[in-house]
């Protein structure tokens, strides 16, 4: 059986990859995927804890996280299409009309 520490370190690394990706990339799709990676890191944590605690609540939680992530994809891709129709590409730096002057 894989020890809990390994699972948590894996989750933390995955979370950091998503975090760094979100903070450094400029493409909407990549940013979106970075958030999905972070959500999957959460799922890894939840399932790891769930197994080591012998408690199913964490797995139920993970299923809900997956469901909500799917709903977010639906809305996110709709916004992506709006961006593409308007500018012909999906880079976030094209969208700077709203800011402090």
């Amino acid at each position, binding site marked *: 059986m894989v020890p809990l520490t390994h699972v*948590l370190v894996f*989750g933390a690394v995955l*979370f950091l990859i*998503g975090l760094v990706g*979100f903070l450094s990339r400029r493409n*909407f799709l990549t*940013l*979106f995927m970075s*958030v999905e990676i*972070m*959500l999957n*890191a*959460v799922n890894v*944590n*939840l399932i790891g*804890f769930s197994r080591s*605690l012998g*408690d199913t*609540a*964490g797995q*139920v*939680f993970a299923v*809900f*996280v997956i469901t*909500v992530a799917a*709903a*977010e994809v639906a*809305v*996110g891709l*709709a*916004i992506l299409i*709006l*961006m593409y129709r*308007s500018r012909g590409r999906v880079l*976030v730096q094209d*969208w700077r*009309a*709203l*800011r*402090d*002057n």
Partner: protein
Amino acid sequence: MEAMTLPDLRELIPEATISISALIAILVGALARNYSSARRIAPAVALIGLVAAVPLMFAVPHATTVPTARFEGVFVADAFAVCLKLLFSAVGVIATLVSVNFLEAERQANGEYYGLLLLAVVGMMLTASARDVVLLFLGLEVLSLSTYVLVGYLRKDPHSTESAIKYFLLSSFATALLLYGLSLLYGISGGTSYAAIRAAGAHLSGDLRLVAMLSVVFLTAGIGFKATLVPFHMYAPDVYQGAPGCVAAFLAVGPKLAAFGALIRLLVEAMPGFASEWVPLLTVVSILTMTIGNLVALSQSNVKRMLAYSSIAHAGYMLIGIVAAFTPGVTADVRSQALAAVVYYLVAYTFMKMGAFGILLSIKPGDRFAETLDDLRGLGRRRPLAAALLLVFLLSLIGIPLTAGFTAKFYVFSSAISAGCYTLAIAGILNAVVAATYYSRIAIALYAVEPGRGEPYAAGGISLKVALAASAIAILLLGIFPGRVLETALQSVRSLF
């Protein structure tokens, strides 16, 4: 596990009513042959759903007396939840009323608009009743997913799209942070219910304290995003400015109320053992939120942005009450008074902020609704009634006596003093003085002698007028007779302990 019976579902009836009205509104929008027939039915369905939910909240026999917990304690309809849900219904009603004319003016289909608005209200209600982090997360997500679409509702308007992009990306990022915090919390407490977390929090030691600290930081990020706490406030001015005006009015209030309601229940029922982690963090966040919100608002010329920064500052004031309530060593009496002050502040904030955003929808110089200070210049002579209403909202936002804003600030600051948080009280009072200057800039522009550009003609219809007048009356009543609402808030907060 006892078998679930039909009576168990009774406490969900208000949420179910609003959800069903949401679905009906969406159906009406989809089935209506032409634009004109749906535009009257959908908002009516929304209003009926929101108003019908109110008596149903009290129809549950236990709701106001004995707090009951259903679905294995996941969902609770105690006096605190009912009190917040009443407020959330009011938010939904005002948001519906201010939206009618806006959507007509923009010639937008409105069935799904009201459907999403109602679902957002349902999400807020779920967070108020959540006694389990899974339901808390789901409530916040129902709220977020609906508002993402509402923010980007004007598909052809690039500003609306831009604010939807920013809101969606940053909000889903904040959700990921919140979830990571919740997953750590689950790990150290061995359960997702508030009761399990509370039990674990009572005896944390060594390394577990560190993990608890980490999870508190992540939770502050996730909830702080919804409540626009610094440093998670950056999105708010951009999103409120670009969002359709009626959505900005909802967004400045709805998610913030849900976040504060959830924060209060989380701190009281789940995390009293984590107070030593929360209190220093929230103290710093509160001071930063007030100060940065007010200082940046000073230099704004766009009223929507100015109101966004002001709503950030108000989140800081509300946080003072929460810190006061959980400062170690306060008596139970001071604690419930501080939390009641926060609830009272939420009520006052709802009317003054939605009113201020709503006024902008009643003025239309040129082809866009009023946004800048120039648009409002000289309004006092051309539209005396609209100017007078805006003045009431501004006076309340400043915190002038006889308005709700004053009593709310007074209760929060005095609760901070009785809890011994003098730094916070002083920071709050100084900030209130600074804030008065930029609200006065709007008031001065209203009654300026030289005329502004464009002709600020009336854009609002009857429903907008009703919403604005009702908000102004509520502010004055709350300011002159605060006792009744404060007493209700106090009772509702006591139901938590």
